């Protein structure tokens, strides 16, 4: 998919537009907080453009904005997280093929389910336990499959 601007800049512009719309539409009491946190993300995005592990700094800088938006509206926080993921994937060149976009869509779907679960919860403990359980199960399945795969290609019978 070809965009008129660089992909990571495009996702940042979308994030900025989303934050602006949310600030204007919701008119929260501390409205100034969101542009400030957005500016922090933008500054880090610019300042780290030649750094080696840039992805980590972008994610760290974007999390305060995600948390602030989630505190007001979960879906706004989720949108910010998607845009951050878009910036990171574009930075790594991982949005160049159809397969890459499908993987990104799967990530959006999974996080949508997580956000819905969190929206339905009143406390942290239960969703955290459920999430940890699902992740542990997923990891166990992957590790088992990895073991079988290595066994097969290392000369042992599968």
């Amino acid at each position, binding site marked *: 998919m070809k965009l008129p601007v660089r992909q990571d800049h495009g996702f940042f512009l979308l994030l900025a537009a989303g934050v602006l719309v949310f600030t204007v539409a919701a008119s929260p009491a501390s409205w100034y907080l969101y542009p400030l946190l957005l500016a922090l993300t933008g500054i880090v995005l610019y300042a780290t453009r030649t750094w080696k592990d840039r992805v980590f700094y972008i994610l760290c800088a974007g*999390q305060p904005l*995600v948390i602030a938006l*989630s505190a007001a509206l979960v879906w706004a926080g989720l949108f910010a997280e998607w845009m951050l993921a878009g910036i990171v994937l574009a930075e*790594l060149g991982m949005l160049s093929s159809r397969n890459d976009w499908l993987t990104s869509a799967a990530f959006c779907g999974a996080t949508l389910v997580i956000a819905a679960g969190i929206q339905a919860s009143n406390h942290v403990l239960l969703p955290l336990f459920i*999430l940890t359980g699902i992740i542990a199960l997923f990891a166990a399945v992957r590790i088992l499959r990895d073991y079988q795969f290595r066994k097969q290609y290392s000369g042992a019978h599968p």
Partner: protein
Amino acid sequence: MRLKRCTQGIALLVILLFACALILDDLAILLAGSTLLAGLFGLWYSFDRRFRQAVVSVRVARSLERAVVRTGTTLRVKTAITLQVPAHMQVSVSEILPSGVVVQDGEINASSGTSALPVTWKFAYRITPVVHGTMQFSGITLVAQDTFFETSIVLSAEPFRGPVLSVQPRGLFEPSGRGSGAGNREIEKMAVLSALGVRSLREYYAGDDLRRVDWKMTAKHNKLFVREYAGIVNLPPLIIVDLPWRGALYPGDEFARMVAAVAGQVEHSTTMNHYSTVLLISGPNILHVIVEEKDLQRSLSELREWMHPVERSAHFYRMTDRSDLRRRIRALEDPSDRTPDPSLEKFLGSLKRQYLTSLEAQQTPAFNSQIGRTFSTLTVDEVYLFSLFTGDASHLHQLIRQAKTMNLRVHVRVPKGLDLVSFPVSTGLLGADTVEAFA
């Protein structure tokens, strides 16, 4: 699977967010941590899928120059590895060599770029087995990495391993009485090539080549006469290069000078005599023979390939010759050297017994026979020996003795600063006709 620095940082951030969410009971922080964790697992899944694709696409084709060799023989191995490098991933492969094998030269590992392409790496390297037995090439190691993860796998299943190299032992000494009996003796010798000049004429015997019949003489005497052709004259010298052992220190600048001197000698021999013959040894190991090569470029190319320190499968350490021992015994028995000192007399008697015991147990080194066989297959009357004289030089002693036995003139070329007077085997060099510095 190894997490790279960036992934470790993100994992730490997730843990911190979860801890804060739990302590503050804040669902907004939990959302931030959960989405990051989901992203991390998504990346892991994607990396694992691409890694499997890469592994499944690997094809290995390996071939050996020879399947059965003796210990210390250098042979060439060619391996072609083809695989599909997945997108956003860097892949590197390396050969897994059997134990007991050393790589003399060549590359055995390679890396790809990050673009998704089918790549084919072709490795061509030379190995020297230093122990005997059956050795199998057990596969390759594949390492894959992207920005977040790194993993490796040893591919040693059936399609990736093989072929089998059978390494036969090589004794340090010749077996006694081999092939002898009923007055006959086995020899390993090539047929002698004749020159164009006629040396003599003789009567025809059944089995003689009819092309050698001299028809004029036959017509004159009414009897079949055949020509005996003369040997080749104007022989180029045999250039012997003693390469240093890789496991010991050697003077690099002197080695560079020796390489230049050898190249110069080869060039001179090719120009003046139309071809050159080079024998490459390292200690008591014969590595390679460039036999009567007419093409100077090809000779120099082969020299470039071989002229570097090599691994030795056999070593000599103060290897004495039977004639040396006998000479020492004779010196001890010389009545003119008798001393009245009884303790010294006792010591000399003990030394003589030691020499006699050594003489009884003395065996002929295999290197001597190999050198003898090599000399006998080559038509030379002069030998140029280049060596750095680092470490033990018993093999050079043996080599010079063999050459002198076959009436070859021996010219030894040594490093400029070598102190031959204090050198332990300087006596071995006395048999040489000339000793000069090659610088």
